């Protein structure tokens, strides 16, 4: 690798956070609009999250008297940085991941756990009883959904015999398995979709915020810039989790399915690239629609023990069953 490659890479690394934030907010706008339309409302315009952010950053940043100030300020920054770093390791559409190594997948899983921990620490540091209850719930929930998530990730990595996301996303996992394994993968997909709302703290797994119970829970004492950073973190996390799901399960690019013109046609490569990027964004939209928006409007918030049970017993069993099926097929 020469110096020019490194320069381009650094340039991309500097740009990608902004791209991630932009699309995160855009998808948040989509989520809100679609949710509203499903509830027979008109809903906010797509650019509403951008306005929210602008307004939050203009507002005063209030620190409560009982708060541990430096932790209180530091946790939103950690919550935002972790998914931004994860973005660098993820394959986005036709682009290879900017950084890669041998254990990308494990690294990403850990990076995804950081925002939840940061939120919990920030909540505990704010010194409000509501935030304390919210922080406890967030940690319980995190411990619950990590297990099915890890099972799914490990199964797919086992099939590829690699934890490198570049390797995993190079071929579709569905093409490697037979009918029995496909059934197993389907179960794992279901498990991953069930993890999605928990990972993103959306209803029915929004116990940590639980507006009617805890008046905002973790974020009850946060305001202004700090709240805005948490908001951004949530938005970027949505893109990261969606992109991870795509990389693990649906890495196909649209350009490999059609033969328009050919490499000799001018601008073909550019057209392909654009088509692939759009296809990736469409996949992300469908995942967010199915995994977040529909679930969010179709279910009531669970009690925390029932949410925990849901992940630990039915979803873990589902994941394990899927794993057994995939492994079994490999053994035959």
């Amino acid at each position, binding site marked *: 690798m020469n110096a020019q490659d490194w320069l381009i890479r650094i340039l991309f690394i500097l740009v990608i956070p902004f791209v991630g934030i932009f699309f995160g907010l855009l998808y948040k706008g989509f989520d809100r609009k679609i949710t509203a339309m*499903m509830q027979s409302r008109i809903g906010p315009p797509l650019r509403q999250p951008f306005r929210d952010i602008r307004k939050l950053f203009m507002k005063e940043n209030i620190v409560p008297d009982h708060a541990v100030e430096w932790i209180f300020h530091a946790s939103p920054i950690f919550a935002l940085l972790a998914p931004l770093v994860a973005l660098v390791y993820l394959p986005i559409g036709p682009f290879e991941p900017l950084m890669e190594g041998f254990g990308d997948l494990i690294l990403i899983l850990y990076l995804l756990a950081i925002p939840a921990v940061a939120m919990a620490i920030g909540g505990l540091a704010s010194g409000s009883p509501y935030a304390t209850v919210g922080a406890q719930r967030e940690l319980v929930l995190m411990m619950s959904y990590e297990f099915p998530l890890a099972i799914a990730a490990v199964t797919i990595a086992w099939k590829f015999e690699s934890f490198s996301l570049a390797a995993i996303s190079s071929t579709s996992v569905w093409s490697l398995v037979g009918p029995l394994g496909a059934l197993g993968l389907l179960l794992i997909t279901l498990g991953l979709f069930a993890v999605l709302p928990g990972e993103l703290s959306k209803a029915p797994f929004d116990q940590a915020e639980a507006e009617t119970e805890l008046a905002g829970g973790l974020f009850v004492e946060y305001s202004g810039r700090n709240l805005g950073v948490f908001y951004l973190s949530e938005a970027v996390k949505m893109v990261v989790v969606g992109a991870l799901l795509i990389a693990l399960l649906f890495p196909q690019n649209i350009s490999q399915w059609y033969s328009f013109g050919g490499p000799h046609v001018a601008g073909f490569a550019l057209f392909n690239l654009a088509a692939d990027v759009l296809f990736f964004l469409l996949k992300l939209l469908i995942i967010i629609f199915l995994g977040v928006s*529909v679930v969010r409007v*179709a279910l009531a918030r669970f009690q925390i023990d029932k949410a925990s049970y849901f992940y630990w017993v039915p979803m873990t069993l589902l994941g394990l069953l899927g794993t057994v099926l995939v492994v079994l097929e490999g053994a035959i």
Partner: protein
Amino acid sequence: MPTSTVFTLIKQLLTKKATNPFPVKYTPGNMHAAASLIESGKLSINPPVDIPPNFRGKLSYDVESCIGCKLCLKVCPSEALAFKPDEKKVKHYVSRCTFCGQCVNICPKDCFVLTDEFLMAGLDNYSDELVLNP
């Protein structure tokens, strides 16, 4: 997953929304400019919700036929009516009115009528539009 709920939700995604929209989608920067645009037909506004037939809106007061019997003062719950002794008529403060219409019922000369006018917002409680027979 409750399937019938999901089915309804998908249906609602496509059907007409229940929200009553504002006359225009975003508040125009300049109200007067927007008003002239509407008059010239360049800007269309969302049609307002129908007013029901027996709507209780702003009172209208017929000063001529009022005989100054003060009965309306006796039933006005919010004391929105004041007597003018020199004129032997009443004065009505629209900003205090609760639109119960008890004055309409008790008036022997039928001076009061509840109209269907509802646009009464203003910055000054004592402006000409908000005080009848000042």
